[in-house]
């Protein structure tokens, strides 16, 4: 892998992990304070959607516009 491909790989991976960690964490906190157990799943869905959005904006939309 060239340097740009390698950096793209790590960027994509970090978007996925960071999105999930952040939104699942927020979901867990909301669950903890509201004594519920489904906000973590909502957080997971939001985390996945937001990371897909970032990947789309950064790598896919630019590529489609070329």
């Amino acid at each position, binding site marked *: 892998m060239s340097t*740009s*491909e390698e950096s*793209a*790989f790590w960027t*994509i*991976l970090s978007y*996925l992990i960071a999105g*999930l960690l952040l939104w699942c964490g927020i979901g867990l906190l909301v669950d903890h304070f509201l004594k519920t157990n489904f906000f973590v*799943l909502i957080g*997971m869905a939001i985390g*996945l959607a937001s*990371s*897909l959005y970032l*990947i789309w904006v*950064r*790598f*896919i939309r630019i*590529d*489609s516009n*070329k």
Partner: protein
Amino acid sequence: MADSVEINLGKGAVYPALVVGVIGSVIALLIKGKSGLIAGGFALLIVFIFFIIHLIISKISNNLDPIAVMGLALFSYFSKVLILGVFLLVIVNKISIENLDRPSFGAIAIAVTVAWLGGEVRAFLKLKLHMPLPKKKN
């Protein structure tokens, strides 16, 4: 118009996977009863959803740059693993062993996966794809 590569792969994989899934579900029904049949149905559904997502991603990323394809592939693997994890957690915690037989679920899921992949490989080998050859140096 000829079908796309993904549709051909899908067609080649669906039939063997369906046959294996139905046979597995019937065997589970005979051995474990209703819980075996439900487990077979769930296993078939999960494996089909996962592989159809894989084919859709492959279709979407047909004309994309390799890095964009890598982004979509990583995203789809991540989401599949997470959704499978959530699904298994829900099964373990919310559905009792009397209603869904775990060993049947696992065995049928593995068998359907193997059948799907085998069918996909067979369909791929049947395709006559035109591979671009490198240009000759004069």
